[in-house]
């Protein structure tokens, strides 16, 4: 088997995931938060594919495809929400969108 070993893939995946997680935690624009979420999902996908390749079966790939579908659906809903929010002329700042507090 050519190419770098599984460790390289996993390290990249961890880096991506951390980047995404920090983005979610730190950034206040919902659009960026959504982007960061996508990064996290794709980090997961990368790890899944790596494991799939190591285990030499297709299960991980199927998982990854499922995740992509979910990610796409989520992006649609998320972007829809963002557009709806901006149409209401509300600031696109997650710290100001606190209507749902208890």
């Amino acid at each position, binding site marked *: 088997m050519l190419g770098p070993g599984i460790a390289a893939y996993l390290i990249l995946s961890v880096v991506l995931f951390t980047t995404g997680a920090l983005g979610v935690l730190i950034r206040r624009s919902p659009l960026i938060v959504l982007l960061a979420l996508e990064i996290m999902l794709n980090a997961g996908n990368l790890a899944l594919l790596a494991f799939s390749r190591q285990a030499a079966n297709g299960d991980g790939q199927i998982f990854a495809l499922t995740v992509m579908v979910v990610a796409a659906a989520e992006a649609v809903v998320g972007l829809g929400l963002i557009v709806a929010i901006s149409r209401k002329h509300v600031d696109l700042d997650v*710290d100001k*969108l606190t209507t*749902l*507090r*208890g």
Partner: protein
Amino acid sequence: MIAAAWIALFAPAAAVVAIAVAGNRISRFYAGVVASGATLVSFICSVIALVSLLGEHPDQRVHSSTLWTWLSAGNLEFGATILVDPLSVFMMLVVSGVGFLILAYAIGYMRADVEERRYHAYKALFVFSMLLLVQSGNLLLLLAGWGMVGLSSYLLINFWHDRETAVAAGKKAFVMNAFGDATFVLALFLLVQHMHTLDMRSIFFVSERIPMTVDGVLESRGVTGTVAVLIALGLLGGAVAKSAQIPLHTWLPDAMEGPTPVSALIHAATMVTAGVYLIARTHVLFELAPAIQDLAAILGGITIVLAGLVALVQTDIKRVIAYSTMSQIGYMFVAVGLGAYGAGLFHLLTHAFFKALLFMAAGIVIHALSDEQDIRRMGGLGRSLPFTYRAFIVGALALAAIPPFAGFFSKDSILASLANAGTLGWILWGGAAFGAFLTALYTFRLLFIVFSGAPTPFASEHLHVKRFDGGLAMAWPVAVLAVLSVVGGWLQVPWGWTAVDDWIHPVAESAEEATGVTFTFSLVASSALALLGIYLAWRWYAQGSRFPEQARRRWPRAARALEHKFYFDEVYDGVFYEPAHRAALATARHVEQPLFLGSIGELSRGVRSLSGRLAQVQTGFVRQYAFALAAGVAVVVVVFLFVS
């Protein structure tokens, strides 16, 4: 014969359905014709059954027929069974015969009432229920008839339902009878437990043949001792409630709130005598518990005297007759309690004639006086209501047991049986003889106050009389009953013949009556007492003696006790109704409200405040949530690493 008996049973039921379905498509008059016509059909069918039974040997006069299984459970089966035997045919004749006359009378009496059709339907329902009671060949079905006569009685007592008193009286009658039903049903449970059936033929006619006597099978199934006593006691409870005997009698005087024909049919001639029928019908069970037989007789004896005393001071024309009914049924209870079934049933028959007659005559009086029932406002009606006056005299003489009127023969038959029944018999004889005196006294008090002397101002002002006093429709049944009140007693004549005893004999063998000197003494003594009663009534009430007033003043407490009917109502109110009422209110207020209805409110308030506090965790800052998520994941990861 069986077919005739079924037709007799269902003809009145068909009338009920017809009147209910037809609604106002038939005239009020025709509703009455349908109801009384159906009863006439029943009577004709009863006569057919009588004739065919007469054609048979006395030992074979028992037939039963089951059309369908009414109720079942596993091995238990209760059929829709009728029994055609001398006792049931005897009762069928009384119920449908007297019933027909009274229903026919009611067409005239109820004319122009707003809800006449409903009245006739109820009346037919009553006849059906009563026939079911006396014809059923199954104790469960008998209980069904038993309950339904109570229901019809309730419906008819509060027929004029915008009267507060009528509604209360109806409820009282029903609830007291429900009490009797409850003890009845408990007795049936005990009987089912031992006999596994309630079919009369299997219980009473164990060899499937008459005579119906104790022959050891009931005992062998364990119906002895306490069990037998409890069964008989339960049945007696039902009988006492239905027949308005002390201590379950207070509903009957109030029941006079119903229209007068109702009082005549249900609360004099038929339904209230059902207790007597029940004891005669189940005498085998009573004979296994002699103590309860004696109890029945003693209750009857007490009722004779107490009801007779109360009747002396009543001022409502119908209530006087109602107390008289209680007292007369007391005679029947005494008789059947001591085993004189023939005598008891004979009195039931004659009583049906003359008591219905008295009520119907009273009904004409009440009508003529624009629905006035208070005898203190009546007087001197003899001249303006000559027909009614004569009918009333016949009824009164029959009730007071003056020969040769009907009551004389039946009452003397009872007294003669008592004279032959040992010490208890003689004690009860004393009560019964005193009762005969009271009967004559209160009956003729009523007669003299209402009919003799000069008309009171109220009477002359309100009196309106038609041909035959109240119209032909009301007059002819009264005339028929008047004739029957004279000749009805000749069925059983001392030193002559004993038709009723012989007829009933295959079903219930009557105790021996006294003969010879004892009998003559009993006859002479009771007749003398009755005559004394009439004489005193004449002195005090016809001659305008001041003795009743003086007596009232001399013994005020006794007078008040009588006027309050010995305080039974007050005691029952205090002992049963009030506690039930209070218990219900207290339960609602102190248990249901705080414990079950309030508690859930408390609980939900608690949950709400708790969740309010918990909800503060929900800050609305998405990034806080994300951080919590990440931190949680981190903790889980650390824990996993640590554990593995």
